[in-house]
């Protein structure tokens, strides 16, 4: 995803998403007994749309300024209330031209970071003209980054196969 208004677009990779009640003291309760489908649950309880909130977290991996991609942290954080957009396949392809972002991913301390690495590469590979070649190149980059952790590397590589 990206955020910004053209002057400085911050690029980030979603690594976590959760849906919960807007009131932290109240846990959602199970609904839909006797309903035929999940849609029916929401149709019968229209208030749910307002009481539940989905949040997601993203890891900043670079930014675009004046059309040039940088693969390190931006000079300032994203503004509050800035709009967030999903990146287009072309933008993903452009961004994944360099695999420098992998070092940020592999060294981040987020939970299940390795799942993120493989998911992100799988997604990026869909935007590539030669998916296989991209994954091999990315795999080689990973094996240099994780050379001393062959177990971890193997786990990621196995997840790269689609």
């Amino acid at each position: 995803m990206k955020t910004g208004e053209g002057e400085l677009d911050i690029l980030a990779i979603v690594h976590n998403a959760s849906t919960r009640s807007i009131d932290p003291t109240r846990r959602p309760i199970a609904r839909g007994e006797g309903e035929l489908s999940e849609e029916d649950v929401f149709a019968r309880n229209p208030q749910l749309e307002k009481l539940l909130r989905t949040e997601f977290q993203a890891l900043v991996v670079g930014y675009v300024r004046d059309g040039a991609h940088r693969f390190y942290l931006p000079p300032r954080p994203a503004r509050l209330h800035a709009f967030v957009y999903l990146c287009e396949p072309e933008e993903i392809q452009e961004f994944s031209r360099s695999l420098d972002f992998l070092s940020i991913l592999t060294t981040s301390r987020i939970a299940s970071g390795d799942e993120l690495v493989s998911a992100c590469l799988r997604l990026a590979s869909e935007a590539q003209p030669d998916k296989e070649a991209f994954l091999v190149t990315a795999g080689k980059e990973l094996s240099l980054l994780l050379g001393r952790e062959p177990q971890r590397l193997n786990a990621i590589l196995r997840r790269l196969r689609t």
Partner: protein
Amino acid sequence: MSEEILNAYEQGKRLGIVVEGSLSQGVEVKLDPEISVEDMAVGRYVTIDGKNRRFFGILTDVSLGAIDRSLSITPPDVSDPFIAKVVSGTSVYGKLHVLPMLAVAGILGIDEKPQPAKTVPPHFSTVRTASDEDIALIFGREDEHHFYVGNPLDMETKVCLNLAELVKRSNGVFGKSGTGKTFLTRILLVGMLQKNAATNLIFDMHNEYGWEGTKEGGGKVKGLKQHFSSQVAVFTLDEESSRRRGVSTDFVVEIGYDEIEPEDIEILRDTLKLTERAAQAAYRFRRRLGGSWLEKFVNEESRDEINALAKEWDEHEATIANLHRGLEGLMRLPFFKPKAREDSVRRILEYLDRGLNVVLEFGRYGDNIAAYVLVANLLSRRIHQRYRERTERSLGEGAQKPHPLVITIEEAHKFLNPAVASQTIFGTIAREMRKYNVTLLIIDQRPSGIDEEVMSQLGTKITCLLENEKDIDAVLAGVSGRSELRSVLAKLEPQQQALIFGHAVPMPVVIRTREYGSAESYRELGRGEKRGVTKDKDLWE
């Protein structure tokens, strides 16, 4: 450096980068991921592009590396082609060991001759396979001195030997039995004739060089005389055998008893199983009885006669019996005569003087090592003496030195083993080198049997496959990068491959010997048949 030159110069394929190393041990090269270790082979040439120099090296070892030791304990799942592709060249990679041999200033080295490398290329210099032009730059192109002997491994370029340099020193051709020594020697001899580098005297033990020779696996190949009929004379010790083989000979050699010196007998001590005392007795007889001692001695046949002789000459009976037993069989060979019809040495010299090459066939007697050693030593001693006199005279009179003479001997360890090397003429020739314009081409399968001093004096060594550790050590003694060359030498193919190093080549090279035996090869080799050497002044008499 202009783009134009860079483009004009053919560059070899990139193999990898230098990662560590030293001048004495050679440098380590990390292979690029796309290059497979399986495509590498020891003995190949590579070039290394330094900043200001270009290095030429020889590939001496190939090894496998891994980024982390734990990889060998928990190897990646390479049955998956994707994972195999990913890990190759990154987590695991191939390494080359390269011994830098030569360097040229300027990255292309177009203007300058390569010099021995005195330093190593810096970290991360690019390593490439040597291109055809690189090889030509190092070994020169075929011309009036350079003779094409073969191709580097997996390349079509010609490796040329500078024959004019080659014949300035004694040289050796080694290799275990059946690896192509004779084949290689024949090519070298043809080269010497074609380039007129030297006059040759060949002691042809198995009748391989004169008229025709045999090929491994049957068939005949042309000998020297068929290529250069006007420049080669075939002498024989066994006229009957030559006639049976359909070889027309120029002269039948006979050796008179009076030509045999006690020194000749002493070098046969091992071969004839003579005791030291028996060999010494020969000297005493010679002193007492002069030239005819041997005739008298071998004509005594019965035990009583020998005992009587011992009494008469005041020698121990056992000593005399020992000497008699040794010499009797040998002297019964038909070419030994009480008195030779004609002086063979004189005839050989006449031919050599006219620039003709002499091949002395041993016919059926080639298998008799004692006869071979005796005849070769005896003739060479006297020929060398004449060359020596002639060279000294030419120095005194300021005249031209005699044309270089190369004497080819087989089973060289019989002449040059540590026990006799100091006594045989071949030991002398090998040591005093080119002073008198006589050098040796020694052919042997047991180089470890040859005296160390002689080995160290050999200019260029051409060696086919050797397996015995001692032999390999003997051949490589005193060569820089010995341990690296060792691995190259031990991995030569059993035929048609040879490692050449020494004086006549700027750096060691593994060659696939050029073809010999087809009509086309004959056409190329026969080229340049020429006129005999002009006799400027008769210095013989």
